[in-house]
């Protein structure tokens, strides 16, 4: 049972609003190691330079999108085991199905509540202490 504060999270979204919302939710859940990146490319660079346990990423972003980021993570052994939760709009079932093919750990539909965020994270990391 990992403590939320021991898990480092990278939030990747081109919208500062969404990053802030996710960050705010994570903070309420006791997370303290939270980094942000504004697109998949910046996210990937951050992952390569900084140890990270969990990535919460948007799908639709400039430069490298969420699927691309997921694919790049899984393709690169040092970071391939990182948990990835994909943020998605409503009814983007097709997108999630594609993300499943690329090995996404779970998905999170926007807008979300802190309770849902917790549930989705716990499905990936196990119950948080």
């Amino acid at each position, binding site marked *: 049972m*990992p403590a939320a504060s*021991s898990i480092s999270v990278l939030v990747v979204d*081109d*919208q*500062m*609003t*969404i990053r*802030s*919302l996710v960050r*705010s939710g994570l903070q309420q859940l006791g997370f303290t190691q939270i980094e942000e990146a*504004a*697109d998949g*490319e*910046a996210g*990937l*660079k951050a992952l*390569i330079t*900084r*140890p*990270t*346990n*969990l990535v919460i990423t948007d799908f*639709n*972003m*400039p*430069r*490298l*999108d969420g*699927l*691309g980021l997921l*694919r*790049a993570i899984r*393709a*690169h*052994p*040092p*970071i391939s*085991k*990182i*948990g990835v939760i994909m943020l998605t*709009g*409503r*009814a*983007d*079932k097709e997108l*999630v199905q*594609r993300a*499943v093919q690329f*090995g*996404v*750990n*779970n*998905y999170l*539909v*926007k*807008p979300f509540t802190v309770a849902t965020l917790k549930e989705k994270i716990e*499905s*990936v*990391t*196990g119950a948080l202490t």
Partner: protein
Amino acid sequence: MDPLAAIKVTFFQECEEQLAELESGLLAMEAGDTDSEIVNAVFRAVHSIKGGAGAFSLEALVRFSHVFETALDLVRGGAITPDQDVLKLLLRSADILADHVRAARDGGEVDEARSHAMAEELEALAGGGEGGGSAAEADDGFGDFDFKPLMVSFDEAPASEAPATEAPVAEVAPEPSGRSFIIRFYPQAALYQKANEPGLLIRELARLGEVAVEVDGSGLPNLAEMNPEDAYLGWRVTLTAPKADIAAVREVFEWVEGDCYLDIVEPAAQSAAAATAAPEIDATQPEVDVMALIRQAQEAVIPQAAAPAPASLEPAKAASPDASKAKEVALDAKAQAATREAGGSPQTIRVDLERVDRLIDLVGELVINQAMLAQRVAECGLQRASSVAMGLDDLEHLTREIQDSVMAIRAQPVKSVFQRMPRLVREIAAMTGKEVRLVMDGEGTEVDKTVIERLSDPLTHMIRNAIDHGLETPEERVAAGKPREGLVRLAALHRSGRIVIEIVDDGRGINRPKVRQIAIDKGLISAEANMSDDEIDNLIFMPGFSTATTISDISGRGVGMDVVRRSIQSLGGRITISSRPGQGSTFTLSLPLTLAVLDGMVVTVAGQTLVAPLTAIIESLQPKSGDVRQLGPNASVIAIRDTHVPLIDIGRALGYRQNSPSPTESVALLVEGEGGARAALLVDAIQGQRQVVIKSLEANYRPVPGIAAATILGDGRVALILDVDAVMVPKPLERAASGPSAQTELAAPAPSLLKAG
């Protein structure tokens, strides 16, 4: 502010950015750009607004953006061809979306009927496209979705912290004598376009020490797929340089850093860092090639994601009248995207404006303090070459630089005003039945935020005028041998410390006989007046000139150009017009870059030092006795060339003295007030021109008639800044001193007056 409210503020700020992106993207598409990245950006903008709106339960905004997004998704997927009609619809939808965002932000209402009609049009468009239904479902659509979350094992890879931390650090303590660096250098196409040469850079590296160079050709595609303009190669250089430090290595790449992926590590230092890092990131792992990784990932994803796109974009391309031109635009956009990419996303922080203004105030104080100090030192009789005086010179230089930099913080590109104009032009064109193309230039030109805010109304008014009055109807234009589509150009540029804004139209120009006749009818000029073309053109700025009696909802004709001129002048600006019959008119605005400092003429009046705003002064002259005529005991006029203007003694107007000195021993400043009226202001002497920091009298003391503001001069004295318009109206100032007069003002101890603020 609770955190959610703060995030909401961010959301609305981001919405503005996204709306701007949406509009510029749609306009680029309208101009024939079919680059899929632009279509994506347009889609993303609406998608992002919808996503954020959902988080804050802004239902109306979510509903409209959903319909809009659905249509854009079909455009993106190729089911809808973005022809001119579709783009016009999308542009109008963008306008409505902007209304929704603002209504959500400010709590106002949107025009429901219009929004509803627009949503229906979008739905009709989406319904017309193939497969329109799939994205249009409003509910979650995840009800029957079978998904098994994947757990991450935290045990499989050893836990990230403690165990790995201590031990290795000591082992890999860097040896001071043999520093070595691993440099990974992956040029982008832009680097080559700027005529940089990797070979030379590597040679430069070799000067620092011994190098071992490996080429990474893993990014090379098949020959058939290779784009000769693109960059595929990377280099891995191991540099052994006992004396160099990482900064020296970085310096080699100083000029190309934005145009390449560059990674410089010092393995000794790195392994120390890696020890604290989670074990996944192991320095001994094969080198990470981010670019190859990204390329790989994109290759894997894109063919699926955008499969329908190439085929579907074809019709749009064919429809574009000039394919090669469209391609040029696309390339241009790509180049821009590349520049953006190379520079990374711009690093910005959002700062409360009050903090910036406080800083500006403080820097103003600093400038004054520095000037006072310099003066004191000079009074002490120190030589200019003494080290103290020279130190002060440096200080002055630095203070000026600080002032400029701080002012630059408040500066913003005029884009925020300019970007409202395309919508305005669309709406007015639709209302007047004219065809208009708006061209904008110099949107990046920066000017103080306050100036920008107050520019919006006059610019709106002038653009309206240009279309409503300036441009002819399409039929008239064709008859006159001009293109049907009228041109309005809005341009901004910096010129000699001011910002110049031009509004140019290629319409009919000013109808001089008509303007002249109106001015005569309204009694503004005499029928015999002999006027130059220029003077006639400038009549439109006169109060009371306005031609129409009702305020049309297009031009606001009841308001007139005199209001525009007044608002420009209240910003310390000037407006001029030049016009050629049948060819169009050009309005030129010239504005100061900031309202915090003022170019002033420092003058002496009855032993007091005053500052007159330079923008109001036309010329200064020495009155000759024959030029002055007395009109009763308290009024006189002065002949300046062939006109007479009132002669006002500032000393008396402000109550400094009862009897005016002889005009011939004084200096007259010919000034022009905001209304265009002229007067000659009598002062004792001119001290010189100076830039002064404006201090509000109202905020620090109370309003004083005849005085606009105050400033502090280098010697620490307070000088009052004249309100030229107020002193030109003689009567109210001469009434019995019931209120505070400028006289009592000056008697007050100067410093205490300003410390309060």
